[in-house]
């Protein structure tokens, strides 16, 4: 049997191979940081043309057309670029989407964690996961052909007649596209992620908290409100912010229904645009380096904002669940 021992002794101690392996794996892990740096440097490099010309006022001011006295936000032909309408559109559609999605998402989370019969829990969670996995283009397709006509025929007239006095709903846009349509499809899209993250933070609240409140004679809703939601509220805020992050960057579905008009309108039913939508629409056929550079500058701003928003959201969720969330979203 010493043949075996001889063989094994001849294999050496593999210290070099082990060290190489360690370094290789480390490099793979560091590539994550590399990706962030890579995106930053590439975008900064190509956006420098527009940045050097317009500076930070790219996001706050616009060229005033001397003929009409009105701002001309986005005029590639004449070289006037301002990101204001797109920032406005992104903010309006995202915030409106949050208003629609958050109550529903929290309601679903409450139902799934506290009220749902055990049998249904698995399938419903599966359904939520599926919703989160549907690609943006499919949502967009459905929105263009089903949702927009639905809103146009039945919901928008109702909005105009009931809320028209707020001046937020004008009847000037017969297409059915616009901020409202974009917000609705966005709401549908960000709902699953807000809901499943809220579920996670609610599950992380220890049972002892629930039992303590119940022992005092609370109804189920009171138990949920004081025993669970109050403890989980930081995490729920995090889930909402994560949803916001997703809404800010959502591209395809928004592009297909927001109407793509590079202007600001007060009416929520008017056509608008968003930061990601204008890039998706105009980049491939951009007229000239300045046009492209301006679009990339918008992309860079989008990148930085979503990184900050996502990081904040993850920190808040982590504070409640204490560790890596169980699922990759």
């Amino acid at each position, binding site marked *: 049997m*010493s043949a*075996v*021992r001889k*063989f*094994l*002794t001849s*294999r050496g*101690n*593999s*210290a070099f191979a082990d060290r190489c392996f360690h370094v290789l794996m480390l490099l793979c892990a560091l590539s994550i940081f590399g990706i962030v740096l890579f995106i930053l440097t590439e975008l900064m490099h190509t956006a420098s043309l527009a940045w050097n010309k317009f500076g930070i006022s790219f996001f706050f001011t616009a060229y005033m057309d001397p003929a009409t006295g009105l701002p001309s936000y986005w005029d590639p032909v004449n070289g006037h670029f301002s990101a204001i309408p797109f920032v406005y559109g992104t903010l309006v559609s995202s915030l409106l989407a949050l208003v629609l999605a958050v109550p529903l998402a929290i309601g679903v989370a409450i139902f799934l964690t506290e009220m749902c019969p055990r049998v249904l829990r698995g399938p419903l969670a599966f359904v939520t996961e599926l919703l989160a996995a549907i690609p943006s283009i499919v949502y967009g397709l459905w929105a263009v052909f089903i949702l927009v006509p639905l809103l146009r025929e039945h919901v928008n007239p109702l909005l105009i007649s009931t809320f028209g006095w707020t001046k937020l709903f004008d009847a000037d846009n017969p297409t059915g596209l616009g901020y409202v349509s974009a917000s609705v499809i966005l709401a549908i899209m960000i709902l699953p992620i807000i809901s499943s993250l809220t579920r996670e933070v609610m599950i992380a609240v220890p049972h002892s908290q629930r039992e303590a409140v119940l022992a005092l004679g609370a109804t189920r809703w009171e138990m949920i409100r004081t025993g669970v939601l109050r403890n989980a509220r930081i995490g729920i805020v995090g889930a909402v912010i994560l949803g916001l992050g997703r809404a800010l960057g959502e591209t395809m579905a928004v592009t297909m229904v927001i109407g793509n008009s590079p202007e600001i309108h007060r009416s929520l039913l008017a056509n608008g645009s968003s930061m990601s939508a204008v890039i998706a629409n105009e980049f491939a056929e951009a007229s000239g380096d300045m046009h492209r550079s301006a679009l990339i500058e918008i992309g860079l701003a989008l990148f930085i904002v979503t990184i900050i928003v996502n990081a904040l959201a993850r920190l808040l969720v982590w504070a409640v669940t204490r560790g890596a969330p169980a699922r990759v979203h």
Partner: protein
Amino acid sequence: MGVGIEVASLNAWYGTNHTLQDITLNIPANHATALIGPSGCGKSTFVRCLNRMHETNPIARVTGTVRIGDLDIYSDAQPVEIRRRVGMVFQRPNPFPTMSIYDNVASGLKLNGYSNRRALDEIVERSLKNSALWDEVKDDLKSKSGASLSGGQQQRLCIARALAVDPEVLLMDEPASALDPVSTSKIEDLIFQLKSQYTIVIVTHNMQQAARVAEKTGFFLNGRMVEFDSTHKIFTNPSDKRTEDYITGRFG
């Protein structure tokens, strides 16, 4: 043939926890030596220092010397080389779940590059015979996975796997504590047969087991080795009062 183990002034830490304090003893070759003591006394840590498995924990630290045969395992060799000479059987059987019985036993050789098929067949058969598992699995060597066996069989599979690399020492950390009495007695019979070929160190919390299989016994308490002597003496006429208290069941 096995070799003897000389341990001198061994100290071990997990972070700031001084788990082993100044252990000195000589483990004789070709004998079975049992290590007994209450939970948390450091006997498992001690055994893991003998094949440098203690180091797999990043906050672990060791001082002192351990000589296996004529080799100082901490300064003369790398952990990988030591572990090929000092085999280990763990408390819970841990066969590799994705491999067949054959591949499990052969893994220590195959995964180190051993390619001689016929020699491997012989080695697998011999190892399984030495661990008293051959008759039960000889027809299913490549068709059954290692994890499909019963608990006692899995542990014997792990013993066969350890024996296949022809170690000089076999460390066993409470090998039968997760098994039923029938499997336990099979393992004990095995140790009896194996000790003529290998040096065996067995950690056990079962004193009767120590009395049954080992020639020498060491009693550990709170990270120190209190007494190390022939098994007979430890169990009939211990020199230290703490040993006597443990043996008679006053604590632990």
